[in-house]
């Protein structure tokens, strides 16, 4: 066998390549990412046995997979949680490599290919969410195209590209399907191959020691010397940790998929149904938060240059700084950068999940106990507060939206005249109601708001 194929020898030699002896549990995240990717390939191929990438039929097959096909509910869940695991592991892997300074000489290209793989993973996440072809998916595409169209110069062309035509329709889904199932996986396979080849070529980086600087002139020789003196074969001395961690990850993902199943399907993908509130899946929810919180008017520039700039900075990093200190203890700014990034994403993620900037369309009319009156102008004003859409954006107690200021105690802050002025003229984020309310209705509304005090009225 060995003589005819040469494979056993080659595989054995590769598997037993020497690695630094103290590369331990910190070094498992890369393998874990690959492992999550393999789960995605296998579950994705399985799903493709039943999924029809047709704008008119995908939704039906999704219901079939979720509700009727044996293990279908589990498989969709597996693909979803597998994707989540992959995104998480990519993030952890990247943070570890950055903190350990492992991107420095001679591993600059390991890092650069890794950044590209991060981008591919996010594209897979976004396109994968769209293949869950429900109302949310259709609106995600439309919202994506509308945003792209605001980009200067190439906007309309970009929108056309995303939709695969003039509007969302038959061509939209097939294109995303081809990208998600053929093109992106091909790129990922190719770049994972390259990434792994580079790992073998330059060796696994040794854990950093404070004060031990990377000098491109001497690094390779020192690394080789260290391996010859203390290196351990990757298989099985180091690989067992990867195996254990990956198995744990798979057990966790399988358990999640088993107990919580597939992500729920939204309404059918009918773009003429207007009652929709598009939201991305959790791993892009923070970006949704970014777009919501940007100063008005800047989003069209940010949408293009933001990701572009982030990509350029990430790829350029090892070429700008490829020598010197590797230990995070001597690189406080690296630690700060990681902590700030994590904090930023978590904060934006929480903000995106709460999305206080979204009006609340489901606020029921205020109850009599909240209003504190069952007749007269106060009650009438409370009804108007609901009917005129005030409650969509303002809180009264626990009811209403959070887009505008909380009006629970507004009478403590504003006099009657100030209220009338504000309501009639509006503000940057509030419509002017002057032409919308008759004087008697304005009086009723203000009468209601005048009862909104911390103390002094019945709740």
């Amino acid at each position, binding site marked *: 066998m060995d003589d005819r194929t040469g494979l056993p020898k080659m595989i054995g030699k590769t598997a037993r390549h020497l690695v630094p002896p103290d590369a331990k549990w910190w070094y498992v995240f890369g393998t874990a990412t690959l492992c999550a990717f393999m789960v995605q390939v296998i579950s994705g191929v399985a799903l493709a046995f039943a999924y029809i990438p047709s704008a008119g039929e995908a939704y039906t097959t999704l219901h079939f997979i979720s509700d009727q096909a044996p293990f279908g509910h589990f498989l969709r869940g597996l693909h979803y949680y597998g994707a989540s695991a992959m995104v998480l592991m990519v993030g952890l892997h990247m943070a570890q490599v950055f903190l350990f300074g492992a991107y420095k000489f001679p591993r600059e290209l390991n890092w650069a290919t890794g950044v590209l793989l991060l981008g591919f993973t996010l594209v897979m996440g976004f396109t994968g969410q769209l293949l869950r072809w429900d109302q949310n998916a259709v609106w995600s595409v439309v919202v994506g195209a509308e945003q792209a169209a605001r980009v200067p110069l190439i906007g309309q062309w970009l929108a056309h590209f995303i939709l695969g035509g003039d509007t969302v329709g038959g061509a939209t889904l097939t294109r995303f399907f081809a990208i998600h199932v053929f093109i992106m996986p091909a790129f990922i396979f190719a770049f994972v191959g390259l990434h792994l080849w580079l790992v073998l070529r330059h060796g696994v980086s040794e854990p950093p020691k404070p004060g031990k600087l990377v000098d491109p002139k001497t690094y390779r020789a020192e690394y080789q010397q260290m391996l010859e003196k203390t290196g351990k074969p990757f298989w099985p001395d180091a690989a067992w940790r990867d195996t254990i961690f990956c198995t744990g990850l798979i057990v966790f993902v399988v358990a999640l998929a088993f107990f919580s199943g597939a992500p729920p399907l939204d309404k059918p993908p009918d773009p003429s149904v207007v009652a929709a509130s598009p939201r991305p899946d959790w791993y892009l929810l923070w970006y949704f938060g970014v777009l919501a919180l940007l100063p*008005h008017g800047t989003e069209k520039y940010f949408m293009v240059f933001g990701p572009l700039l982030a990509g350029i900075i990430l790829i350029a990093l090892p070429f700008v700084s490829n020598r010197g200190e590797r230990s995070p203890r001597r690189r406080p700014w690296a630690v700060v950068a990681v902590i700030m990034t994590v904090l930023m994403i978590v904060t934006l993620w929480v903000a995106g999940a709460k999305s206080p900037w979204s009006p609340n369309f489901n606020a029921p009319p205020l109850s009599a106990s909240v209003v504190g009156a069952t007749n007269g102008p106060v009650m009438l004003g409370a009804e108007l507060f609901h009917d005129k859409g005030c409650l*969509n954006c303002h809180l009264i107690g626990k009811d209403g939206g959070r887009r505008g200021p909380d009006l629970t105690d507004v009478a403590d802050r504003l006099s009657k005249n100030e209220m009338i002025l504000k309501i009639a003229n509006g503000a940057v984020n509030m419509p002017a109601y002057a032409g919308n309310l008759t004087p008697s209705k304005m009086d009723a509304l203000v009468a209601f708001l005048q009862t909104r005090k911390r103390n002094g009225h019945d709740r």
Partner: protein
Amino acid sequence: MKETNAENNPAGCPASPAELSRRKFFARLSVAAGGIGALMVALPVAGFILAPFFERHKEVWRSVGKMDSFKIGTTTAVQYEDASPLPWAGVTARSAAWLRRVDADTFIAFSINCTHLGCPVRWLAEADLFMCPCHGGVYYNDGTVAAGPPPAPLPRYQVRVLNGDVQILTAQIPISSK
């Protein structure tokens, strides 16, 4: 590609000048033949994939209801079919617009897409406002911006009345603001 003598004359392989020029010829022949083969496959593939970008978009008039079914001063959601839906488009072939009857003869058809980031705006009849569920963009009943982040009024479709039918001229989304 710059060819040097070293590349064409590997160690242990003595070559006469004639052999060297033959080798150079074979290398060029292979690259050229491979390039022709690749182009023959790649050009139609690129054409197939990129065709949608060069297709001219058709616009057609679609009836959205009888004129009498829209009361003066009201705004209603109307549905219609896209200009040239693919046979397998299913429900995705449908589009919607907000149709406002201003007076006996005047109709306005608004895009349902907020000009901020494209979310579908909803009409609140009692409040006489359009409101966007994403970031709280608000528009008055004539589509002008009342509040929030939208940079421009709601775009409009062309509307006409033909034989008592209200018709909307389909347009690509997003409608470029004219």
